C-alpha cells in the first residue's frame, strides 16, 4: 500500500522534475533577441520638450483627454511617470551644462528579456518579432507583479475600473502601426527627430557613430544597449545619464537572471525532498519498533497512524 504510494509519488516527482529542467533550459540559454527587431534611438541632445509625442500617443492609443493641454509646459515643474492615461511623458532636467535644460522622454523600453514578461503568471506579455512588448488584456488577472518587476517603473494600472482594470503601457503602437511596418506615432510626430526608428542593430551602430563623430557632444555610452539585457529603446545623452533620471545602477543582467537561481532549485526540491523526508521518517520510526520486525512494512504503517 505504502510502497505503491511511494512509487506514485516518485513518478510524479520524476515527471515534474523533467518539466522543471526543460523549462530552465529554455530560460538558461542566452537570448540574443530577434534579429529583425525594431527599436528607437532617442537622442536627448535633440529634444526641445514640445510634448508633441505625448499628444500623438494620446491620439493613437485613444487615451482619455489630458488634464492640461499638450502645449502647456508647466507640467515640467514636477517629475512625471507614465500612467494609465499617458503611456509616454517628457520630463525636464536642469543641468549645469550650457545649452539649457535637458528633456527626457519616458515610455516602455521594450526590453529584449522583459521583467514584466518573466514575472507574469498567466503569460499576458509577448515580445514580438518586431521588438514590441505587448500585453494580452484577456488573461491578465491583475496581480501587478509586472509593475513590481519592471526596472524602469513603466506599467500603469487602471485602478479606477471596477470590472475591467488592466495594465496600461506603451506597446510600441504594435497593433495599429508597428505590425504594418510603420514607426510608432511619437516617432512620426517628433519635429526634432529626437527619435530615430529602425532595426535595433542598426540603431546601435548609428548611436556609436554619432558618439564617434561628435565626442564632445555625447557621453560615451548608449543607455539600453546593455542595461538589463538590452532594451529596444536606446538613449544618447550629452549629460551623465544619472543626472537626467536614468537608473544607472541596474546592471546588464536581465531581470530573469536574478530569479533563475531559485527557479533552478525547484526541480531539485521536488526530486530530493520526498526521498529525503520519507527516509527520515523510516529512520526515526524504526527506533520505536521491535528490531526483529524491521523488514515489515506493516509496522511502519501502524506508526503513521495514531
Amino acid at each position, binding site marked *: 500500500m505504502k510502497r505503491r504510494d511511494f512509487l506514485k509519488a516518485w513518478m510524479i516527482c520524476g515527471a515534474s522534475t523533467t518539466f522543471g529542467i526543460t523549462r530552465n533550459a529554455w530560460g538558461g540559454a542566452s537570448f540574443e533577441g530577434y534579429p529583425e527587431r525594431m527599436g528607437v534611438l532617442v537622442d536627448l541632445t535633440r529634444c526641445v520638450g514640445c510634448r508633441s509625442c505625448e499628444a500623438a500617443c494620446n491620439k493613437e492609443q485613444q487615451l482619455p483627454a489630458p488634464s492640461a*493641454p499638450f502645449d502647456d509646459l508647466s507640467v515640467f515643474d514636477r517629475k512625471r511617470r507614465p500612467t494609465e492615461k499617458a503611456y509616454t511623458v517628457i520630463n525636464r532636467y536642469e543641468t549645469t551644462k550650457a545649452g539649457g535644460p535637458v528633456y527626457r522622454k519616458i515610455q516602455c523600453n521594450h526590453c529584449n528579456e522583459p521583467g514584466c514578461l518573466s514575472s507574469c503568471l498567466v503569460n499576458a506579455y509577448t515580445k514580438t518579432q518586431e521588438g514590441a512588448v505587448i500585453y494580452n488584456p484577456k488573461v491578465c488577472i491583475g496581480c501587478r507583479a509586472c509593475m513590481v518587476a519592471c526596472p524602469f517603473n513603466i506599467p500603469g494600472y487602471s485602478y479606477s*475600473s471596477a470590472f475591467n482594470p488592466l495594465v496600461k503601457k506603451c506597446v510600441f503602437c504594435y497593433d495599429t502601426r508597428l505590425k504594418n511596418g510603420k*514607426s510608432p506615432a511619437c516617432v512620426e510626430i517628433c519635429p526634432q527627430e529626437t527619435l530615430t526608428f529602425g*532595426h535595433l542593430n542598426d540603431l546601435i551602430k548609428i548611436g556609436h557613430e554619432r558618439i564617434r563623430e561628435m565626442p564632445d557632444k555625447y557621453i560615451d555610452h548608449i543607455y539600453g544597449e546593455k542595461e538589463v539585457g538590452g532594451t529596444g529603446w536606446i538613449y544618447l545623452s550629452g549629460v551623465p545619464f544619472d543626472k537626467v533620471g536614468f537608473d544607472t545602477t541596474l546592471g546588464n543582467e536581465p531581470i530573469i537572471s536574478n530569479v533563475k537561481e531559485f527557479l533552478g532549485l525547484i526541480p531539485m526540491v521536488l526530486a530530493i525532498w520526498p526521498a529525503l523526508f520519507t527516509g527520515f521518517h523510516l529512520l526515526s520510526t524504526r527506533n520505536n519498533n521491535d528490531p526483529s520486525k524491521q523488514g515489515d512494512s506493516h509496522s511502519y504503517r501502524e506508526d503513521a497512524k495514531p
Partner: protein
Amino acid sequence: MHVVRNWLIRGVLVIALTIAPADSRAQNMPDSIDLDSLVQFYEKVSFDHAKHIGLSKDCSVCHHHTTGTPTEDANCIRCHKNSAATAVVACTACHSAQPFSAETIKKNKSNVKSYHKDMPGLKGAYHQSCGGCHARDGGPTGCQDCHPRKKSGDAFYHAGEYAPKTPKNGKSRGR
C-alpha cells in the same frame, strides 16, 4: 551628417552683407520658399531665403557641401573638401519626408555602402538646422512663432478651444 556649426559672429555678418554673392548660381536661387510638410496641423511656413542669406552668408550652414560656400565641418571635409556643387540643392532632394517608412528603411538597409546612414528626414533637418541657430542667435523658437497652429492642430494638442475645460480632477476619472 548634418551639423550646425561655425557660426559667424554678428560683426562679421554685417560686413558680409556688403559683399556681393560670389557664386553665379546664386542668381537662380529663390527668395522665398514655401515649407508645407506640416500642413496637417500648422500653416505653411514662408521661408525668407533671401533674408537668411543675408544673415548667414555661409551657404554650407544649411546646404552642406552642395552649393555656394564650401563646407568647413571637419567631419564633412574628410570627403567633401573638393566636391563640386550638386545639380539639385533643395532640402527635399536628399532629406526624405518619410524617413521611417518601411520603404525608406529597406532602401537604406540595401544600400550597404552608403556613408550617410544617419541622415535626418525632412522635418528633422528643418527643425535641427533652423532651431540650433534660432536658439543661439535670438531667432524665433516657439512652435507657433514660425508656423501658427491650425484648428486641427489645436484639436490634436487639446489646446485653444479644445483645451480641457475643467481643472485637473485628480484620480476620479469617469469610466
